[in-house]
């Protein structure tokens, strides 16, 4: 099955990027995708036990998460905007470095959490070391809200024990 998944994952971008649907180009795409899928399916889908339903649920959860994240990003921008334009900027700013332990275990979910923290209001990930996240927070309010709802959401999508 993993060969089929890899083939689809490789072939869809081929179609989009080539944009030509004559037999020659599509044929080349099929051959290349098949070869690469045969060689590297293990790299694309390292966890073997997951079933199709699991993967689809992860995908749906991830798309929902992206939507939520986009809203958070808009809030983050308004926040930076307000602080940047405020005449009393120095009173609003209270930068601090916060360290916390995460309960996430997979590398992928840590990566997503770190990037999401960077994109959301008043916080930027400085360093991830094992389970420790070092966060730079712009205001006091942002520092208090860590790690917050985001970690739970990511855990629900990617860390389900089967």
């Amino acid at each position, binding site marked *: 099955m993993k060969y089929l998944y890899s083939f689809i994952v490789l072939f869809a971008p081929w179609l989009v990027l080539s944009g030509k649907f004559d037999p020659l180009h599509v044929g080349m795409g099929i051959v290349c995708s098949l070869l690469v899928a045969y060689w590297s399916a293990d790299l694309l889908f390292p966890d073997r036990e997951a079933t199709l339903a699991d993967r689809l649920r992860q995908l749906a959860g991830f798309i929902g998460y992206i939507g939520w994240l986009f809203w958070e990003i808009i809030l983050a*921008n308004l926040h930076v905007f307000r602080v940047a334009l405020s005449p009393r900027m120095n009173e609003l700013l209270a930068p601090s470095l916060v360290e916390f332990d995460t309960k996430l275990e997979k590398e992928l979910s840590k990566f997503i959490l770190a990037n999401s923290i960077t994109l959301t209001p008043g916080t930027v990930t*400085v360093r991830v070391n094992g389970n420790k996240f070092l966060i730079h927070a712009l205001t006091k309010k942002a520092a208090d809200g860590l790690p917050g709802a985001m970690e739970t959401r990511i855990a629900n999508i990617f860390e389900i024990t089967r």
Partner: protein
Amino acid sequence: MEILAYILISTGLIFFLGTTIGLLRFPDFYSRMHAAGKGDTLSTVLILLGCICIVSTQGGMNWLLGLKILLIINFIFIGSPTATHAMMDAGKKAGAEPWRKDSK
């Protein structure tokens, strides 16, 4: 559709303005990265979404162009926070002190 595109692009430009003002006004390296890292992502994504709206009204094979722009958005979403993160880490390693209320 075109009106929506212009709204999206102007909003993106306004956010870019906010980012730039933040970049210039914030007191230290770290807080400047806050402005740069977040504003960039949202405004670029908004402008590209506007481009998709314009492109999709032109008909023909242009939906492929729209999908390619979606791919660019995808890479920006992954790349921009990672770059911000790398620069923050480099600043920390180089020993840049975070600005505090009581310093100066």
